[in-house]
């Protein structure tokens, strides 16, 4: 799965998050920061990650989420890692 494909999938998830302004989802890159750029509440991050598991058919460890950074790149890396170890 290509990284851009993962980003597109993430954008689909983010569109369902009530607290994120859809206008900010245009032009998301790996450098986009969920908290600084999209104003995602920290409580919502866990929901996004849980939805990510479902959408991409992967499973993350609790420890992976503890150490997760706030950039799109971090989530993409996590999905790639989970896909590889599946």
């Amino acid at each position: 799965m290509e990284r851009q494909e993962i980003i597109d999938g993430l954008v689909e998830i983010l569109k369902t998050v009530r607290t994120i302004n859809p206008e900010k989802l245009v032009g998301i890159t790996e450098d986009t920061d969920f908290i600084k750029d999209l104003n995602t509440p920290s409580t919502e991050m866990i929901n996004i990650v849980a939805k990510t598991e479902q959408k991409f058919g992967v499973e993350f460890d609790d420890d992976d989420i503890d150490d997760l950074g706030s950039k799109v790149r971090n989530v993409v890396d996590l999905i790639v890692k989970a896909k590889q170890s599946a």
Partner: protein
Amino acid sequence: MDSLAGLPPKDVLVLHGPTKLLVDKFLWHSPQVGIVASYTATERDVKDHFGIVRGVDQVESFTQATAGACNVFFECIKMGCSPLELVDKFLPRFIGIGQVNFHYYLEKGDTFVNIGHIKFNKFRQVVCDGRIYKTPKGLNLDEYFGNFNEERLLAYDLSPDFTLVAELQDITCRAIKKELFNKQAEQ
């Protein structure tokens, strides 16, 4: 440990000191569904607050009794350890409150029950919705909730002499590793 029912709250919420612990008893607990826990307001709870329990303390009591305690329970099960052993690794973090509506008040000596329904449990984060009810005077709560069940919890099916005090949504707690907490504090 199959459930929190009957365990002393001080042995579950071990980081909360006696003056900050606002749960007296876990009355009923179905790990994947929810929990019921009681607390009786003391002189300290109403002091300097015109004789009634502060809303913020009601939210705190509810959070300790539901999302906080259930989070401890889930981690203990996952890690095969006791709440006391968790203290070395994790700190409980109260990270979110959704909508809260208050309907009634609580005075010194009033006993209330926190009834929490688990909405989300993943990645050491637990989210609960629920209600607080003032209980009828003299009711034996152990007996009353002894045969409680999941359907009744989800429907808040209580006898009419319970008084609705508050409705709470999206009460969110997360257990975070101590090392991350220290890292955040340094930033």
